[in-house]
């Protein structure tokens, strides 16, 4: 995870310097993640989720220089997003606890940053919808260099060659990346699922 934060710090430093490409990469990488994060927490309302994400980015961009790399950048962004989500529920006159998800519990949030070992019987404990949500949460908390290749291969069905092309590396390197990504996913999922 330390390596992840190092990459996150570099991205933020480039943002602070005014690097336009870093700005585009920042939004492109974190918009889908934050949207998925918000969507499941605002009653699956697409328009509200979009509003929440836009408010999150608006707030974040004025404070981006305060990111210190003490947590993953996505985790840091989620704290802003949670605030916006809570504001939505306050405006609706409801409590934020109504959207409390398993992955929102302090233990699970800590576990998303830690390691564990995935066992088959972990999976059997969850309903399909809950399982899917956990999978997305774990994918979004993985380093981008792991989360994206896993999505491309197992959800979008891309070949290793196509993944290699997207990553700008050889097929062998892409295979190696996928192996490490699968291990990271297994560890992360086991941790958040309460192994």
């Amino acid at each position, binding site marked *: 995870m330390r390596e992840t934060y190092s990459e996150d710090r570099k991205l933020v430093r480039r943002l602070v310097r005014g690097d336009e490409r870093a700005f585009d990469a920042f939004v492109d990488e974190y918009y889908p993640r934050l*949207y998925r994060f918000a969507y499941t927490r605002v009653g699956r309302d697409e328009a509200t989720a979009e509003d929440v994400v836009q408010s999150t980015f608006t707030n974040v961009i004025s404070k981006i220089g305060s990111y210190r790399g003490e947590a993953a950048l996505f985790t840091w962004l989620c704290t802003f997003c949670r605030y916006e989500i809570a504001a939505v529920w306050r405006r609706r006159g409801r409590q934020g606890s109504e959207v409390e998800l398993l992955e929102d519990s302090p233990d699970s949030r800590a576990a998303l940053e830690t390691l564990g070992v995935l066992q088959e019987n972990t999976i059997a404990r969850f309903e399909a919808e809950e399982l899917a949500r956990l999978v997305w949460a774990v994918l979004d908390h993985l380093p981008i260099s792991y989360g994206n290749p896993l999505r491309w291969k197992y959800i979008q069905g891309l070949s290793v060659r196509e993944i290699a092309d997207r990553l700008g590396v050889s097929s062998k390197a892409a295979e190696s990346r996928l192996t490490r990504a699968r291990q990271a996913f297994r560890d992360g999922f086991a941790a958040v699922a309460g192994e």
Partner: protein
Amino acid sequence: MSENNHMPRDDSARFGGRDPADGGLVERLLTAAGPGPEIPEGGADRIKAAIRAPWRNEVAVAARQRRRLWAGGLAAAAALIIAVVVVPRLHRGDLPIEADAITLVVAEGRIEVTPPGSTVSFLGPDDAGSIIPDGSLVRTPGDHRAALRLTGGQSLRLDDDTVVRLDSERSISLDSGAVYISSADGAGTGVEVRTAFGTATEIGTQFEVRLEHDILDIKVREGLVSLTRGAEEYQINHGIRFSVDGEGAVTTASITSWDPTWAWTQGVAPAFAIEGRSALSYLEWVSAETGLSVRFENSEVERTAATILLHGTIEGLHPAETPSAVLPTCGLSAVAEPGALLIARLEADNNEP
């Protein structure tokens, strides 16, 4: 215990097929989860449109604040020691640079130097002037930068999080991070920067080579750079940002000499020794460091700048901040224009404290 003993009977359908390599379980989880909520089309573009201008504003404000910090602590001292002598006609060229070793000129923070066959040493701001042996590995940690002077007089600046090896007086290997080479100020040319993605050779210029995220990024501020990648060779002109990834995919874009991404190079710019130099000479240095062209209000102002000699020091000041400290002592002022500094006579009213 087999995997199937743990799975409900109907899970096999929703998990789908298995990857025999290792990811069977992971594959089934991801396949079962599916793509997740559909991401709104154009959503990221809408976010960019909404926050790009505020972000640019934040960057500009932060840059101004950093410059104020630099100037705040040192401008007063600089202003006290800058004096002006007007002479009939004297325009000295740049002083010759004589050096037979690579030296540390500026350290912003602490850098690591590992000479060949030796252990790591740490050099800081007080170690300016230290000789760095050929073959040394130099590393700048996060938020630490440095400027070295190569034996040909070129300025080699290291951004933070950079690792380079000084192979010889004209060749360095960039492992990661970014370096900026400036052969202005009468220095020699022909320094090459070797990377895993190719070798960039300068042909009288200022340029940056950055190796991050498996992408080689070359920005040419002034002059020309040649990049050799195996049998391929590219000529990169000033004003061009050239990128190539591990598979050889090339993209190019234009970049101005005053683009904000050059700003880090000023933070470790070696101080210009103004003592006995003409204001014109000093302005040429400002132009080289900031990327701004210098324009004179009229030929008389240009002649004046050439005949004024400066005394004192601007050491420690950010190059972009120095005109406001130096020029008023010469009866001149600098007005910022897009990509340029307009040098004019200081209005009488502006001379008032």
